[in-house]
């Protein structure tokens, strides 16, 4: 597609449930990033995929968070046993390559609300 596509756009779940958030990056973009944006805050880095390399998971806040990227394209962020503090907008971005010179294109985000 023309841009980064994320689904669902909104997700309301109960505390303790698992959720999956999907990201479809721009075709041909080898680098994919997940960020989290809490209400009124800046973006917080979560995880980074580049081609077939092992992902950089250094930003994941706990072992309840995991992500995978299948076939170098679509990525899924999974949050297990959700907690209220997980409520945030989860943003996915992709870029042509790993260099910081490559512009990140963000999706519109998935807003997660944990009741």
């Amino acid at each position, binding site marked *: 597609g023309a841009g*980064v596509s994320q689904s669902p756009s909104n997700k309301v779940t109960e505390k303790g449930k698992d959720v999956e958030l999907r990201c479809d990056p721009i075709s041909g973009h080898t*680098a994919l*990033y997940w*960020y989290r944006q809490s209400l*009124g*805050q*800046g*973006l*917080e*880095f979560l995880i*980074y995929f*580049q081609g077939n390399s092992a992902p*950089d998971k250094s*930003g994941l806040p706990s072992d309840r968070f995991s992500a995978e990227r299948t076939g170098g394209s679509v990525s899924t962020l999974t949050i297990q046993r959700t907690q209220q503090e997980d409520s945030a907008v989860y*943003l996915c*971005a992709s*870029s042509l390559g*790993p*260099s*910081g*010179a*490559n*512009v*990140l*294109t*963000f*999706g*519109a*985000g998935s807003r997660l609300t944990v009741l």
Partner: protein
Amino acid sequence: GESVGLHLPTLSVQEGDNSIINCAYSNSASDYFIWYKQESGKGPQFIIDIRSNMDKRQGQRVTVLLNKTVKHLSLQIAATQPGDSAVYFCAGPVGSSNTGKLIFGQGTTLQVKP
């Protein structure tokens, strides 16, 4: 730890005036900085970037200034328009990373009064 931060959470300007949004950073090793604009309900959108070997870079109606001595950068928007109303973030690389792994400031909300 390293940080990137904005000076004012909210900036209100009159339509047609120039806007200046400021940002401070702590990581001397940062090789580049980026400014993003985020409109309500949307993801951040790239505005302009600047590498550490530059002091100034201009785009369409926007200018970014970098002062490495005091670790400060600013985004100037000329002739501010209602469509410029948004949250503006400055961002820099995490550590010595040369990737899109970024640390973001908390954002400045720009309000443009008609």
